[in-house]
């Protein structure tokens, strides 16, 4: 037995939350969205990462990440989760160039009269951006560590290969939940909850899934590096054949349940290479998490007229499974306040223990 490294305070304390934002979310590479929705000129997406509003904009074919705040009054430049619009402020009409500098200010001479030096400094802060296949990651650090130190080359190659199969259309949902993001990260690492929490919805589809595989892992040395926290698994999936499956370029040719864990807050799964779901546990406040669902099917070989109905149908199904977790995790969160004992982990939970250890090191600022 190992008593949890994390105390209940790690799940609700405001100071710890700030430390996470600084040492994890503004230091690591964080998933921001998917590339195929940003293909058009001036296509954009917005996110809040580590408390900082970020816009990723297609600037003449190149994706760039900027702070999503006008240099004038700090108004967000883009509002929607995904959209297509030039990088300009709705408040006073400032327009930005591809490099984040202010290209034009309406009535600049009459109203603003910035000196040349002042004018030269008006610029959006830019952040590092990397794409891995259709995955877009950003890093808010001033000098980011290479992406390859956070994810192994093998894992990056897998992500690139599988994401090449993403459809051009994606359904996106933001699901507010009242618990700390780590509870959800730990929950997906803990496959032993599935028989108890999802006996009817999810378990029947996973004949091969067993936490015993995780328990067999103790041979694995304890994780020492952040890159040890992200990995992939696959197990057998009981596929329900659909007519549209014949109309898409499936990933792989086996009925696998593909499962990717990307530290700190992504669980990416694929149902037999036909359906792809990126789940992100986006920290909003110590006790509030937005679960972000990005759901796609494999890319179309020929046009599927009913694709919106297929995406919406899968989205509803995945949400029903998530709701079984949310109802539990929200209660777990509530009970943390009255608790002075810590979780007692069995050997199968070594992945949680690894995560907690490296997380604790990171928020101490030593990572």
């Amino acid at each position, binding site marked *: 037995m190992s008593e949890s490294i994390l105390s209940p305070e790690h799940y609700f304390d405001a100071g710890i939350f700030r430390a996470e934002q600084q040492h994890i979310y503004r230091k690591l590479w964080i998933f921001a969205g998917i590339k195929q*929705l940003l293909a058009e000129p001036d296509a954009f997406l917005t996110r809040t990462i580590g408390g900082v509003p970020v816009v990723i904009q297609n600037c003449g074919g190149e994706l760039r990440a900027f702070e999503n705040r006008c240099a004038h009054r700090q108004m967000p430049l883009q509002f929607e989760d995904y959209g297509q619009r030039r990088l300009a402020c709705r408040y006073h009409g400032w327009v930005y160039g591809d490099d984040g500098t202010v290209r034009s200010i309406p009535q600049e001479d009459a109203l603003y009269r910035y000196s040349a030096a002042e004018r030269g400094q008006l610029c959006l802060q830019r952040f590092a951006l990397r794409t891995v296949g259709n995955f877009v990651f950003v890093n808010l650090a001033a000098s980011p560590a290479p992406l390859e130190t956070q994810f192994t080359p093998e894992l990056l190659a897998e992500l690139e290969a599988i994401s090449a199969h993403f459809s051009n259309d994606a359904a996106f949902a933001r699901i507010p939940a009242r618990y700390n993001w780590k509870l959800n990260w730990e929950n997906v690492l803990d496959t032993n909850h599935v028989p108890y929490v999802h006996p009817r919805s999810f378990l029947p589809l996973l004949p091969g899934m067993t936490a015993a595989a995780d328990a067999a892992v103790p041979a694995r040395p304890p994780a020492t590096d952040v890159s040890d926290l992200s990995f992939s698994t696959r197990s057998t999936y009981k596929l329900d054949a659909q007519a549209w499956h014949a109309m898409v370029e499936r990933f792989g040719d086996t009925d696998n349940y593909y499962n990717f864990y990307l530290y700190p807050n992504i669980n990416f799964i694929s149902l037999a290479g036909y359906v792809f779901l990126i789940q992100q546990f986006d920290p909003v406040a110590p006790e509030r998490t937005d679960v972000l669902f990005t759901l796609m099917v494999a890319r179309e070989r020929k046009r599927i*007229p009913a694709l919106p*109905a297929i995406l919406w149908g899968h989205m509803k199904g995945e949400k029903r499974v998530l709701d079984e977790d949310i109802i539990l995790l929200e209660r777990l969160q509530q009970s943390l306040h009255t608790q002075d004992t810590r979780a007692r982990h069995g050997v199968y939970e070594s992945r949680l223990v690894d995560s907690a250890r490296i997380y604790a090191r990171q928020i101490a600022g030593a990572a």
Partner: protein
Amino acid sequence: MSGELWLIGCGDIFETIAAAWPAIEPDTVLHVVRLESPAAIATPFEERLAAASPQPRVFAALDQSALNFARFDVYARLRLGGRRFCTLIHPSAIVDATAKLGENVWIGAGAVIEARSSIGHNTFVGTRALVLGAAELAAHGWVGAAASVGARAKIGTHCVIGADVRIGAGVEVGRFSSIERPGHYAEPIAERTYIDALFELPVRIYGSARKQAGTAG
């Protein structure tokens, strides 16, 4: 109108029509082809209509399963097979003479369709629903029981307006959207938007702009 009508499908509206017959068209003989479920449309059903007299009229009645695509499938296949469709109006519905109704349209009991409104092919309007003046409902749609579509509102193809949903006057709802959380909607709703009790916030589908997908009928 006299003659024969072949009703094919399954679900609540299907059963409503079958049960209300012959009040809907007293002089027409109704033949019923009941499918086991919307999924049953994957297997051919056309031969079950084979015994129909020359050029019989047909009506495809399936509920709003998969953004109305299940009903669309049956409708489109029968249409390609050269069948003639009709429009069915419950005797207690009030349909203004200036309203335009497409084929394979159902207007439920107590529904009111006001002047100059238009309802596209294969769209179903539920019990006691209101379609107010000059509202436009595109094809393959669904308006649930007691829902209302405000004056001059425009609803795109394949939309589901759920029970007790009220779309405000002049509001446009983009195609392939599903609004199923009861309430009043006064702002435009983009295409492929899903507002459902299952989700606290609207769900959106983004990506390649599609041209008239799924409206081949």
